[in-house]
């Protein structure tokens, strides 16, 4: 029988529906592995064997009664710990929410339950998803299965390390400036940020509401497409949720054909500032696409130069407002100073102890950006940059069907290397941020190992808003070009975690 934990979700779903393996057997295999190896990777903040197996058993019972409720019926999944779950604590990687068990499920979690997909556990993240390495998690960093001394990317490094380490066949992430795609690139996995509004944000602990989007983290493109089909769609609980569905992503993957494809290479994100090995992998992807028959054009997006700056005004501004709810009144930590403190003193003491350094930095920065006298110059200008970026992209998409960039400027760096340099950390997301500012879909697909360090590199594919199918179609083309060369996915080459 196939090795369960290294199989794709699509294969596992096939084993379950053809009754060659049960959901309980498959879920057990992943639980066995994660219980043994999570101490090495710190991918999960919480898991509960009994609860996961009860869900798997229900999925098997439905099958025994002849009911298959979704194409991923019975396939287990890991969920980032900033999505609310009524049967598991939800911390968002913060001490301020330690031990909090929410009273409602996020819409995405409800959809996973309705699809009979057992939840394996909650994955680690930078506190409130602020970071690109998981080093800002209050519960310690996750480790990259390719090299345990390196970061798995962030904020969704728990999900990416779980996928690369085969501690889950599928995972859910959230992406505000690259938190799905950057970790995917760092670990050789696939991570997709759908169009803003394609997946409901209800029950996602908000970081920056105009940028946040939930999406799949997987070990191949088809699995990601299958998962987006399960979690996507309109939700009346989220007023920014798109009113109409975007069609079947799986169908788009099946229709993948390079014929007539026009690929745009963004001038501003294809030369300077990338590690040579990452740049070489990117050039190789473009050469492969050209050789396969795609037309390659260079597109100019001059406003991208200001994307990171605009992002680090808009994000802290929205975050400082969103995180005001952690006030020690309705849930979470309360720290009461000695004496006869007012509620204001209690709030300040609670937030002092409950928040980590990056969260404090961004709240204070956001408060500054929104304060009178600076609002127009900073926040106002940043919103105008957002318009310019949308205009650049609209023009670029008249010249090309999709745009390609390297996902990240470097491969995975060492734990501790950038943690004391906020600006260096912010620049990790230089290629991923424009998609969030513009609301368009983007996916990272592995495109090789950088020659200088042997670590994974990713290529990012951007498509126009609502054209998630186009994004998956091209992602599948790129993936196939590499599968033809490698004979297996990049993730199959991850070192044996048990031996590390």
């Amino acid at each position, binding site marked *: 029988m196939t090795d369960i934990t290294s199989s794709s979700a699509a294969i596992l779903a096939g084993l379950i529906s053809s009754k060659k393996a049960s959901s309980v057997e498959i879920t057990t295999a992943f639980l066995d592995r994660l219980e043994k190896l999570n101490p090495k990777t710190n991918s999960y903040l919480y898991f509960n064997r009994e609860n996961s197996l009860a869900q798997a058993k229900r999925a098997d019972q439905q099958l025994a009664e002849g009911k298959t409720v979704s194409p991923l019926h019975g396939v287990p999944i890991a969920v980032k710990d900033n999505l609310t779950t009524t049967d598991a604590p939800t911390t968002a990687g913060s001490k301020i929410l330690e031990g909090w068990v929410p009273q409602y499920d996020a819409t995405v979690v409800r959809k996973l339950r309705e699809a009979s997909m057992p939840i394996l556990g909650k994955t680690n993240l930078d506190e409130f998803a602020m970071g690109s390495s998981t080093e800002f998690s209050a519960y310690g960093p996750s480790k990259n299965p390719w090299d345990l001394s390196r970061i798995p990317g962030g904020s969704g490094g728990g999900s990416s390390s779980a996928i690369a380490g085969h501690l889950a066949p599928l995972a859910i992430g959230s992406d505000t400036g690259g938190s799905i795609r950057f970790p995917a690139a760092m670990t050789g996995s696939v991570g997709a940020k759908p169009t803003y509004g394609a997946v409901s944000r209800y029950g996602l602990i908000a970081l920056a509401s105009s940028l946040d989007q939930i999406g799949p983290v997987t070990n191949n493109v088809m699995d990601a497409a299958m998962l987006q089909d399960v979690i996507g769609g309109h939700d009346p609980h989220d007023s920014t949720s798109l009113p109409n569905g975007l069609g079947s992503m799986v169908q788009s993957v099946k229709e993948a054909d390079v014929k007539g494809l026009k690929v745009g290479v963004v001038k501003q994100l294809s030369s300077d500032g990338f590690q040579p090995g990452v740049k070489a992998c990117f050039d190789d992807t473009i050469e492969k696409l050209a050789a396969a028959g795609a037309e390659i054009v260079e597109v100019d997006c001059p406003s991208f130069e*200001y994307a990171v700056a605009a992002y680090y*005004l808009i994000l802290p501004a929205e975050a400082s407002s969103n995180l005001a709810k952690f006030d020690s*009144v309705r849930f979470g930590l*309360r720290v009461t100073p000695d004496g006869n403190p007012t509620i204001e003193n*209690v709030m300040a003491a609670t937030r002092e102890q409950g928040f980590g350094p990056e969260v404090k930095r961004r709240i204070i920065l956001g408060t500054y950006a929104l304060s009178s006298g600076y609002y127009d*110059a900073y926040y106002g200008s940043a919103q105008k940059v957002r318009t310019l970026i949308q205009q650049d992209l609209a023009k670029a998409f008249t010249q090309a069907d999709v745009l390609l960039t390297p996902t990240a400027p470097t491969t995975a760096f060492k734990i501790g290397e950038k943690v004391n340099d906020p600006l260096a950390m912010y620049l990790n997301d230089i290629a991923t941020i424009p998609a969030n500012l513009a609301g368009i879909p983007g996916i990272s697909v592995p495109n090789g190992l950088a020659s200088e360090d042997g670590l994974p590199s990713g290529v990012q594919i951007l498509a126009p808003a609502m054209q998630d199918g186009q994004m998956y179609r091209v992602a599948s083309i790129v993936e196939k070009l590499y599968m033809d060369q490698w004979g297996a996915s990049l993730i199959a080459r991850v070192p044996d975690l048990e031996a590390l």
Partner: protein
Amino acid sequence: MSEITPDLVRHLASLSRILVTDQEVEQLAGELGIIVDSVATVTKAVSGDVAATSHPIPMANVYREDVILPSLTQLQALSSAPDSADGRFKVNAILDED
């Protein structure tokens, strides 16, 4: 160099309801100064006639049907509160006594 002084950091932290030590104030003033200098480049990128975008996908007047749906009970809403009494959230005094 930006105008992020230790006093400004103290003021912003107070507006943000975050207690900060003197050492944190010094460190934050330095870090935020560097960040603000960097993000301030946005002011050079735009002119007056560019419209602002607050939301990536334009939407307006999003309503749902006006029907009553189940919601949290009072007990559920209070269940995570650090303190409660008589079916309400309990907090310290809002005003100073003196």
